């Protein structure tokens, strides 16, 4: 897996995942997206980093793991990217 700072774990029919990706794109933030319905490795990783989350999207930013898409939380988490 790549070492991009933002990762998002998704499923195909999940609109919140879609919205989260659009949000990141609009902000010009690079991210790696994984479809956990097909990618079992990614599913394993998602469960591991989130301590067993079973809901998408799971978004990892720097050291933070967010379950679900909440704009204000994500925005706050993204602050780590701008500070050295």
């Amino acid at each position, binding site marked *: 897996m790549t070492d991009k700072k933002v990762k998002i774990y998704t*499923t*195909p*029919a*999940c*609109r*919140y*995942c*879609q*919205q989260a990706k659009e*949000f990141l794109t609009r902000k010009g933030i690079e991210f790696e997206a994984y479809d*956990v*319905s097909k990618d079992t490795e990614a*599913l394993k990783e998602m469960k591991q980093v989130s*301590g*067993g*989350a*079973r*809901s*998408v999207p799971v978004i990892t930013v720097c050291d933070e793991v967010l*379950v*679900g898409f909440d*704009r*204000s939380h994500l925005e706050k988490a993204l602050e780590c990217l701008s500070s050295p």
Partner: protein
Amino acid sequence: MALTIYTMERCPFCERAKCFLYDRGIEFKEISAPPGSREWQEMKRRTGGESLPQILIHDVSIGGYAELVNMEATGELYEKLGVPEMGEERVLYDVIIIGAGPAGLSAAIYTIRKLLKTIIISKDIGGQIAWTTDVDNYLGFSQVNADELVSKFEDHVKKFDVDKLIGVEVKTVDLATRIKRVVTLEGKSYYGKTLIIATGGRHRPLDIPGERELVGRGISYCSTCDAPLFEGVEVAVVGGGNAGLEAVIDLMSLATRIYVVSLLPISGDAVYQAKIRQSPKVEIYEEWQPIKILGDTSVKGMEIRNLKSGEHKALAVEGVFVEIGILPCSDLFLDTLATNQKGEILVDPECRTGVAGVFACGDVTTVPFKQVVVAVGEGAKAALSAYNYLMNQP
């Protein structure tokens, strides 16, 4: 001090006026003037008013709270005070729409086509359609992907000149005055001559022990999103209406066993019922009640109770999908608008709320049948009502 305000205790609009001034950092001199006091006489003499609060700027009476808000909306307040406006550009909209689900977007199409200056403020786009995969009962589409339908709605609105604030939450609203004010979580104010509330609904939780702790760890309110994470395990779906049965169908090809738990006999559409009753994977518990979610760090089971016999049973499931209806997102308005016991906003056949210039439509209202097609129709009605209201203003 440029601004003086006459007040008394237990006067809600005095409080509001003071909060309004505090919020904006406008300094003022407060004079307590209960009826009959010397200050009351002074207030009457200086302002000609007979009620509180009364506000003066540079010794000139401007009126009460309503006038204060109106003057801010037009920019006159800052002019009179001789201070620059606070940062943001002040626009007075004809219509502010809160919510961008089917009701809100439909309302926007109608207001824009009436050439009303419109802004949509919403947390997200699409509202509850985001929770479903396919929509099968929208006229003109025998089956449409929910995503596609939302995109079509969005594209339609984009064709017109409308301000959109998506991803923005509303903190408070001020409905009492002629000019309505909407304040976002970030503290920005928006002003409108009318307000259309289309805030929709949110999932009703089970409200049983273990549920809240395990959200995202086996408890799910979006089967479309999360079903793929429950491949090869046993799950439960709570709810026997259409949403519940759709969740069962989403899970049918993935989970090894699906328990359907419903307080009432299954009531979803016959098409769905036939589908799930045929499946050997599905086990139905009608007139059973969920009591408790089991598990510490993830869902390990759900305890249920038979409503008739009182028998208890534990279902060894790793996932619980909750589809027991929706609650209206009306928290912002509970103090100011009339609602029913569920919190749904009472509206008349023209989507009026009882407060002049404030309209509501879609799932947040008492209008029955929470359907996309109903919300779209109600949105149109609210917009046309707002238009009629504006046309009849002096």
